[in-house]
């Protein structure tokens, strides 16, 4: 099923946009052979989901087998978005990314991180995520190069952000995502504390310093 879809027009158009946006990553994605352990599966709602077959007959679904769109909507509604920048960890087939963008239109900048190149390749095949790929406010970080992710992050994010975890995708690469979350947390902490120290007045900086003090109290309890 996935192989057939590779050939369709919509996919070609998406890849074209992808090349225009990030040629290196687009080349990488096009160059890798499809991963046999990723298996597209039909769902009750008619959409496609995907599962990863693992050793010992174990498998993990990345999206609901009942209704991936509904699942994605619930996920997106649950996210607490406080800033104009958001980082989404785990793309899967992209259902939740689409729902997230649809629901949180005030967001100016989105970083989409997917550790699994093959899964992202399949997302391009299966779902029409051309608007995600085409959106100049969406930056993509595909693959598992922690240093590259760190550089990109420090170069591009210059204000407070929130990050949002899509567990089915992140749990396939726990070590990589743990490193990414660690980097995000440190970066965010530094931003919040710097904001607190650069300026003597204002609510945000007092708030940041207050949380710091609260942690001091917890440490000494």
């Amino acid at each position, binding site marked *: 099923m996935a192989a057939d879809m590779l050939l369709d027009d919509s996919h070609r158009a998406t890849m074209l946009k992808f090349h225009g946006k990030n040629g290196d990553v687009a080349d990488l994605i096009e160059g890798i052979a499809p991963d046999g352990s990723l298996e597209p599966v039909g769902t009750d709602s008619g959409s496609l989901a995907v599962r990863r077959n*693992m050793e010992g007959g174990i498998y993990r679904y990345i999206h609901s087998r*009942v209704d991936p769109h509904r699942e994605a909507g619930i996920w997106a509604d649950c996210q607490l978005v406080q800033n104009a920048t958001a980082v989404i960890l785990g793309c899967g087939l992209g259902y939740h990314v689409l729902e997230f963008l649809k629901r949180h239109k005030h967001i100016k900048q989105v970083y989409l991180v997917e550790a699994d190149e093959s899964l992202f390749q399949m997302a391009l095949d299966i779902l029409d995520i051309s608007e995600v790929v085409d959106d100049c406010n969406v930056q993509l970080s595909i693959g598992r190069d922690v240093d590259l992710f760190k550089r990109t992050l420090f170069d591009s994010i210059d204000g407070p952000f929130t990050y*949002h975890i899509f567990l089915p995708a992140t749990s396939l690469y726990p070590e990589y995502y743990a490193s990414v979350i660690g980097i995000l947390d440190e970066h965010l902490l530094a931003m919040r504390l710097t904001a607190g120290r650069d300026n003597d007045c204002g609510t945000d900086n007092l708030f940041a310093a207050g*949380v*710091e003090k*609260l942690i001091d109290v917890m440490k000494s309890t």
Partner: protein
Amino acid sequence: MNILVIRMHRFGDILQVTPMLQGLKQKFPDGSISFLTGSDMTDLISCNPDVDEVFSIPEKEHRWFLKNRPEQYSRIYNELYDFLSELRQRNFQLIINRQYEFGGLVAWLLGAKEIRGGAFSPERGFVFTDDASKELFETVRTERSRNSRNLVDWGCRIAGVPLGCGEMLFRVPGAARSEAQDLLSRGGAKDDNPLVAVQMGAARSFRQWGTENYARVIEWLIRERDRRVVLLGSEDERGLAEATVRCLGSEDDVINLTGKTDFKTLGGVLERCQYLITGDTGTMHMAASVGTPVLALFYGTAYPWETGPYGTGHLVLYADEPCSPCLTPEECPCGHRCLKAITPRHVCAAFDIAESMRGENIQFPAWPDEAVRLFVTRRRSGSDQLLIPVNNCDDREEGLLPLPARTAAHRPGGDDMESAMRAFSNQRDLLVRRFCLGDRPSFIGAFSELVDRLHAAVRCLDGSRHHEETLARELMPTIEEVYTAFQSEDFVTVLDIVQYRLAPVMEGLIRKRRSHGTI
């Protein structure tokens, strides 16, 4: 009025806030009361009818990480920052802080108009802003032994609600009551057995009376008063229970539930008992909160006027040494004389007095020893709780005698099955939320809780006797499937099964029982 009450830890201390909550609800009937507590304490408050919403912080876990895994600092900082930012948007008008400096800081971060019970400001640090808090602080700091006011009453003063306006309250959910009954039945309790609960442990070793003393009392209760004894305590206190059983020589007449109860089932077990015998512990406050009379032993740092069981009709034994209440029990120059002053003889005599007070023909036997004093508690509307020396106790005093039966406040609201089903549905929603927040450890924890609630709901549906049959017949194949998915960390399938298969089966079971007229 949008009100937030803050108390993070110590389960007895949280229960001591419950009368104040009733007072707040009476004072602001159209107001909304939220409660901020530690994640491991939410069960104490989630069933409280006076609280509209419970928020929690994994404070204990955070503290552990901050001390042992400092690299987690940034994660914890960001979590707290986000959580408090979200809470700030609630615009609380009044915050009652019962968690001192921590609560003061949180209250300041949330920016309430009025903060009672201790506030914080960057210029002045932690300060008491209301008169009652200032008075409490001064009293405890300068002349603690003159304090005759229970912390519950102090709490009401701090919140600005009428004294004696409410009772200690923990409402046992129906499912937990059934589970408690199961635990007792498995321990050999029959429906008509009069039970006495004993809590031997205490948070600090200098508050522990000793297994030999407890064993003598327990033996007397079994042999001379024909009671069955239920041993209560945490997982850490199993050793104490085992040592006591060794002293007794047999465990036939003892139901050992140490390490087997959570807050809800503890409430369920205590509800079923005639009395609890204990030191100054959280379990003591739980017994008072479900309406079970307490025989409390106070020595060392414990001061019954401050932290004694709240309500009418509890008995308090107090070793009234000149040095008590002491502040340095670890370095006691008197060899913990206060601990040794109370003997099994005192406790047995107090038990008989309690029994006498429960009967219609009330008599007060002479109290044997001036060195150990015996008081009965009396809660009064409009004023502070009293500790009345038993020899001065007068049965003409209105409202004191006989010992209280459980009041309407302690009875569960609504249908047991409905509450069990609601608990299952709430847990299902929580599981979905944990999934969406990408919090793997919390998702795993929420799943285990969900399975417990599922069992509890089925137990309520069928009564405890047949619930395992029903589970096996109707739900076991689905449960096995969900377990398999869970073990593979196939969280999507776990959610699919829970939402689209388990929940409808549960609803179907209810419909079936309703149509058969068994509910």
